[in-house]
């Protein structure tokens, strides 16, 4: 009789398991929270039998109705142990009553009484009543979701749940889409759309993107064969310009808007039974022209078939070449495809690098083994000392130097120390000789 009792429990007759007292009346009121109903089972039942259970009995009541009055022992027909009592509502009442004696043929008979188990059971509010009562009203206008202890409602796409948490209404006057792709459909699609709609679906994407609309099937908007869309209309705007208006049952298929702002306006009159429309929109950036190298020394990466907004390329040169932009040498170069489909910097050129004049060798000189005077990458020079008065000393036995990609003259080992010319000693040009003997 306490509302705060747990969601399950047992009820026993007075003095149970000892015989119940005479002239006793007891009542139990079971209450569970909203969203539940009550299930009751008798586990033990031993009440003085009588015709119509007139003397002693247990009465079960729920939902304003009496579910039965019971007495007897295990095998009697009026015993309720094989039944499950289930309430529709949140309350159940058990009433026990005994008369002044329990005698049979002058002998006192002890009756044990009863023990019952009750529990709260989640109520599926979404399910219609099993007795198909005509008065049942679904708890949700569109979709009902049951959960333990309650339920909630939701609406079909394009509809909004109203403040009563039950009914759904179309609200599509300012639908905004900012993802680069997505789906849009008429309210309730593919079920017939409601009357008196004035929907506006706005797609707003970054400048430089171009939106394409792909209308799906079924496509069905009320029309008249001899007048252009007199009832319901679907209009597509690109920016401020209307591209087209549609009705009927022929899907427009693909619509290329070439704009990054699109509005789809759908207006219906007060009648009709058409299924409506749906579309998948996608967007693509404006492609930039394929970058072309000016010469075979230019390396463009990454290589792509199409370059679109935000794609960028890096230009490098082959070894021994340098990047030149407007006669200015660059350490590195990259350019990005802009929203208007142009590259933000034109592709530069690659020019061969040159070395400075080779270091002068004191008491020696160099000569070109490649084209004389050419200081470009991979030109080769060889040093010589002024013989016979000097001889060469080299770091790694190399007198040959090549103009490297780093614009330095390097020997075969990669060193840049030029040889030394050191004087030859003890070798006179004209040693003294005596001819006379």
């Amino acid at each position: 009789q306490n509302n705060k009792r747990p969601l399950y429990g047992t009820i026993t007759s007075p003095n149970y398991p000892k015989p119940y007292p005479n002239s006793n009346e007891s009542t139990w009121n079971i209450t569970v929270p909203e969203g539940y109903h009550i299930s009751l089972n008798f586990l033990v039942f031993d009440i003085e039998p009588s015709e119509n259970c007139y003397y002693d009995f247990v009465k079960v009541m729920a939902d304003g109705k009496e579910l039965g009055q019971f007495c007897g022992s295990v095998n009697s027909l009026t015993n309720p142990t094989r039944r499950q009592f289930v309430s529709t509502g949140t309350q159940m009442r058990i009433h026990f009553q005994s008369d002044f004696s329990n005698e049979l043929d002058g002998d006192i008979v002890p009756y044990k009484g009863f023990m019952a188990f009750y529990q709260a059971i989640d109520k599926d509010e979404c399910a219609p009543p099993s007795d198909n009562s005509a008065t049942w009203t679904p708890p949700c206008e569109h979709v009902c979701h049951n959960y333990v202890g309650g339920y909630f409602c939701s609406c079909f796409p394009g509809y909004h749940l109203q403040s009563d948490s039950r009914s759904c209404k179309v609200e599509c006057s300012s639908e905004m889409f900012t993802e680069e792709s997505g789906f849009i459909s008429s309210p309730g699609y593919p079920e017939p759309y409601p009357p008196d709609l004035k929907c506006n679906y706005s797609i707003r994407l970054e400048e430089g993107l171009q939106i394409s609309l792909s209308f799906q099937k079924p496509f069905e908007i009320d029309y008249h064969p001899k007048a252009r869309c007199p009832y319901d209309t679907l209009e597509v705007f690109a920016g401020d310009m209307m591209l087209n208006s549609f009705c009927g049952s022929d899907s427009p298929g693909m619509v290329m808007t070439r704009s990054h702002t699109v509005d789809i306006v759908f207006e219906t009159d007060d009648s009709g039974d058409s299924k409506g429309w749906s579309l998948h929109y996608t967007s693509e950036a404006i492609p930039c022209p394929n970058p072309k190298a000016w010469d075979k020394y230019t390396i463009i990466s990454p290589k792509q078939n199409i370059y679109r907004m935000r794609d960028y390329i890096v230009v490098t040169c082959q070894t021994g070449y340098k990047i030149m932009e407007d006669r200015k040498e660059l350490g590195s170069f990259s350019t990005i495809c802009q929203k208007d489909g142009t590259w933000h910097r034109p592709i530069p050129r690659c020019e061969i690098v040159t070395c400075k004049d080779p270091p002068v060798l004191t008491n020696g000189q160099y000569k070109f083994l490649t084209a004389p005077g050419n200081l470009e990458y991979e030109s080769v020079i060889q040093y010589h000392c002024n013989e016979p008065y000097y001889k060469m000393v080299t770091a790694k036995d190399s007198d040959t130097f090549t103009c490297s990609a780093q614009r330095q003259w390097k020997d075969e080992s990669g060193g840049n120390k030029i040889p030394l010319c050191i004087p030859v000693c003890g070798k006179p040009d004209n040693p003294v000789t005596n001819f006379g003997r």
Partner: protein
Amino acid sequence: ILHGKKAAPGNFPWQVFISRMGRAGGALIGEHWVLTAAHVLQPENEEKEDNDPTKVHIFMRSLDVNQLLKIGNYPVEAFYVHPKYRRGRYDNDIALIRLKNPVVMGENVSPVCLPSPEDEDDIYQNHRNGYVSGYGQTENRTIANELRYVSVPVVSWSACETYVNDKKLKVKDVSERQKYSLTRNMFCAGFPEESLNKGDSCEGDSGGAYTTPNRQDTWVATGLVSWGIGCGQGYGIYTKVSNYLDWIKSYTEKD
């Protein structure tokens, strides 16, 4: 040079003409280095030691003194006298002169080599001939304005020692006698026949190189003209360059 010959161009391209208190010789041993005798730079007759390098004038590139003077001198950056040299004695009579600017070698000027340890047995052996050149006094007691040279043989150390000691006995002045000391840092070269007109180096040749073509026919500076008892009257005494290779290289190899 006594009883020598006029040198031809290219005979002794290492010959350096040094002018300080008087004339002297030297030997070019590298682009920056001239080897000479210590007493050329710190002579006995100088009142006090003067280490001013600007007073040392170096000439090269010609065999003619007048021409040398016209060509001009090679500025001296510094000179280094052997630390064990003492004025008035001739032991360790060796010095190095560092030139401010490198010498550009050619037909008329190129260095002489220093002897290698392998050369020693060859170039200092008794009777081994070598050549000494210079602009010093000739047999006519005139100075040579053109480079002259003479070939003189090495004399054994014992023969030289005997010769020097004999001469020493005839000297009465004690301080003079001290100069007559032959050390192992010296060797003698010349002819024993006193009465003959024989070749020798003489005053003005000091510091010049006594050179020997070694077995590889490379000319090496075997000695430096150091001292003697008169000229042409016995052996000339030369600084033994091979004893100073480490000292020389301690300077030159820094380059």
